[in-house]
């Protein structure tokens, strides 16, 4: 159903696609549309009136730097606007400029639509001395905004630049690799760590040339003896190594030694698959000295958690009735391998029936530190009313930074159980549905009486008739094959076909002759009988019937082993036919009948001869 076009609100709603909604709530559509329009207006008002508040600023990460170093310039536009064009940079003498992209953030706060767009540039100094970064310009809604100029000094050698915080590149790449187009390195943030403490492994790929369309495949190092956690995201920045500018890509991984001793991180490799050639870059293996946790001062209840943690515990309700399930939760959060935090020792409460606990873990890798929280939940079903206190939980962990054992403790929890309704069956955890209870088990009931009680014990395989029926199909198939072969031979082998059909053709002729005899046509009768004889013999001998003479026929018969009597018979029949054909008067009917019988007999006697042999 398509809503009728015409009424404006309907058409409007139709356009924004809530047709289905309308179908069901058409009565309410009017008020909804009114409220919707008011809301949109409400949103638009501040946008219209707060247009002028735009700021455009420039900032650099440092004002003094060396020739080896580079400067990050950021132009930030903030204000109420929907689209931001690219700003125009001033001419920058003494620098080479690379754009490193933009980052933007749009937000809608209290109906104010605000955008913050930062344009990032990398400036590589080319000459010494003091430089001024002039005003950058941007045009927004027909108005030009300008930034303040910034003074920068470029010094010889390493400038007094503070080492960048954590994320920045470590103090320079291995010098022997410097100067190559592409190389990789791997570092760990510490060589010594306690078992279970995070060691951050960083793989860096230095790229001094552009790699167009190359396929990069990073293979993680072999990390036996560590529990690992990937630390996204990848970090990219430019760095100058020995006077050459490289694009550096960093991939980090958190390593947690699982046993004390010298643990080795195998080489990581990067496969670069170009159009024509490929190469593999591999790092050197690294070692980390894993220190065992101090035995001295180890609390008895320490269960292996390493890191910095807080612990909290809570109940989903502080009051409940008998048989109403209560969930007790215990959460450990902090930095470290939270996943390895073991299940706490749950308090033993006599009048509470408890079910299997389940644990859920959420981890994050903010600032490249593995951290997170692990929550354990346990379901209790109170069996008796009363006031209960759930004693505090204790989590003893080892803080590797302080090198000492610490204990996180939760608050004790109070729980009041009221006497409930008469005790029903216990609620199974997790769902409210009740399983079908099997009260008693018995055999299945007897079968009903059928109208006819068939004897199923009769054995078909013992029936000889049935077994005999198996012979039928093969016989049928063999018969079919023979029949088909015969048909084919008759079609292809003329000699054979004549041989086989001779008798049949002769009999047909004789039958025709019989008809002629009845119609008193004696000349035609004798002609037909003669043709029956010549036709038959010609077929058997495979020669043309026309012009076959008596002598030839007789000779052939003798050659095929016919006795004198048969040859005589041929002579007799033939002569009779000749007489009949050329006699001026019609022959006697008895003679014709006799002749017919004789010829028939004669042909039958010839069937026994060996015609097939040549």
């Amino acid at each position: 159903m398509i809503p009728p076009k015409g009424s404006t609100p309907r058409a409007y709603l139709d356009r924004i696609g809530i047709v289905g909604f309308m179908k069901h709530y058409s009565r309410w559509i009017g008020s909804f549309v009114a409220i919707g329009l008011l809301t949109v207006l409400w949103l638009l008002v501040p946008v219209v009136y707060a247009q002028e508040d735009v700021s455009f600023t420039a900032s650099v990460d440092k004002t003094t730097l060396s020739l080896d170093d580079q400067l990050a310039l950021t132009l930030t536009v903030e204000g109420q606007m929907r689209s931001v064009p690219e700003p125009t940079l001033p001419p920058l003498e003494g620098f080479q400029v690379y754009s490193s992209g933009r980052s933007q953030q749009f937000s809608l706060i209290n109906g104010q639509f605000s955008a913050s767009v930062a344009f990032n540039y990398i400036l590589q100094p080319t000459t010494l001395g003091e430089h001024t970064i002039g005003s950058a310009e941007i045009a927004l809604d027909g108005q030009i905004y300008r930034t303040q100029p910034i003074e920068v000094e470029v010094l010889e050698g390493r400038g007094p630049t503070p080492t960048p915080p954590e994320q920045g590149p470590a103090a320079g790449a291995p010098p022997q690799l410097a100067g190559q187009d592409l190389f990789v390195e791997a570092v760990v943030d510490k060589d010594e760590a306690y078992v279970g403490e995070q060691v951050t492994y960083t793989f860096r790929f230095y790229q001094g040339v552009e790699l167009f369309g190359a396929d990069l495949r990073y293979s993680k190092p072999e990390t036996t003896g560590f529990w690992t956690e990937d630390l996204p995201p990848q970090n990219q920045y430019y760095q100058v190594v020995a006077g050459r500018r490289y694009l550096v890509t960093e991939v980090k991984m958190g390593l947690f030694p699982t046993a004390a001793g010298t643990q080795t991180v195998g080489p990581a490799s990067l496969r670069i698959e170009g159009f024509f050639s490929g190469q593999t870059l591999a790092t050197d293996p690294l070692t980390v000295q894993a220190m065992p946790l101090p035995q001295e001062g180890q609390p008895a209840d320490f269960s292996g958690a390493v890191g910095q943690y807080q612990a909290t515990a809570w109940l989903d309700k502080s009051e409940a009735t008998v048989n109403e399930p209560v969930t007790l939760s215990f959460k450990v959060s902090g930095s470290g391998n939270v996943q390895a935090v073991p299940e706490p020792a749950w308090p033993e409460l006599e009048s509470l029936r408890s079910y299997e606990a389940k644990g859920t873990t959420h981890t994050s890798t903010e600032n490249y530190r593995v951290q997170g929280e692990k929550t354990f939940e346990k379901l209790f079903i109170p069996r008796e009313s009363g006031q209960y206190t759930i004693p505090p939980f204790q989590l003893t962990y080892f803080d590797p930074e302080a090198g000492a054992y610490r204990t996180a403790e939760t608050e004790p929890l109070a729980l009041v159980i009221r006497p409930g309704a008469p005790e029903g069956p216990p609620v199974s955890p997790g769902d409210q549905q009740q399983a079908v209870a099997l009260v008693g088990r018995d055999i299945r009931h007897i079968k009903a009486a059928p109208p006819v009680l068939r004897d199923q014990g009769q054995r078909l395989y013992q029936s000889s008739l049935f077994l005999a029926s198996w012979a039928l199909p093969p016989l049928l198939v063999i018969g079919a094959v023979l029949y088909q072969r015969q048909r084919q031979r008759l079609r292809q082998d003329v000699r054979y076909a004549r041989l086989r059909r001779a008798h049949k053709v002769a009999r047909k002729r004789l039958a025709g002759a019989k008809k002629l005899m009845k119609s008193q046509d004696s000349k035609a009768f004798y002609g037909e009988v003669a043709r029956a004889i010549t036709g038959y013999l010609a077929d058997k001998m495979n020669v043309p019937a026309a012009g076959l003479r008596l002598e030839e026929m007789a000779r052939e018969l003798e050659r095929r082993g016919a006795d004198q009597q048969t040859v005589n018979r041929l002579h007799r029949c033939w002569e009779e036919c000749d007489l009949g054909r050329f006699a001026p008067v019609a022959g006697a009917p008895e003679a014709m009948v006799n002749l017919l019988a004789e010829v028939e007999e004669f042909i039958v006697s010839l069937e026994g001869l060996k015609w097939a042999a040549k």
Partner: protein
Amino acid sequence: MGRKIGAGLALAAIVFAGLALVTRVQAQSEAWAVVFARANQLYEGGRYEEAAAKYEEIVASGLRNGRVYYNLGNAYFKQGKLGLAILNYERAQRLMPRDEDIKANLAYARSQIVDKIETPDPGLLGHWLASLQGLLTIDETLVLAWALYLIMAVLALLAVFVWRWRRFCLYALGFLGLLLILSLASLGVKLYQQEHIREAVVTAGQVDVFSGPGENYLLEFTVHEGTTLTVEEERGDWWRVCLWGDLEGWTQKAGLQEVQSHG
């Protein structure tokens, strides 16, 4: 043309004769159905002993029907005669191998017996083959094989007469031939089991198994009511029996009943 019709008719006649043979209604006895219904009434009235006697009457007449054995098994089960119940469920299962009720009651009855059944694990393939094998009775397998055989014959005739279909027919023949061989193999196994593997159920409370046919031999072990044994050899009143393929010895026939005694 007429010849073709004739051939078709002949073929149809053969198929029809075959089907008639298969579904040949045998010894339909309405009288026994009445006895059966009467026994059911007794059962439902809780008179299990009388019901069992009526069912036994039908069995004694030589008429074999899975329903009768099943209900008889139930009647014995209700009387607490586990051995006889299991015996009759076993007999019922031979006649109606796909019946869920029989399967359930046999399993339930077996769960009640004294001896713990320790069948060797046949493995996944063995289990699969066994369940496939237990799907059809001997007669059903035979009919399946026969149907395949007939279809093959028709295909062979087509291959002879219709040149265009020859290739297809030959492929189909190969495929069906494979199926036929499989079903015949299955049939062979079933016939072997039927004719050569004799099973007996302990119907007495317990029976002693000796190392030889006589009570003066060493007592090897004792089996309790409801346990199924394989009969290996017969000598007078004694049977050499085998339990789960490894334990074996001699026991008197009296305490056991053979499952296939009517076969």
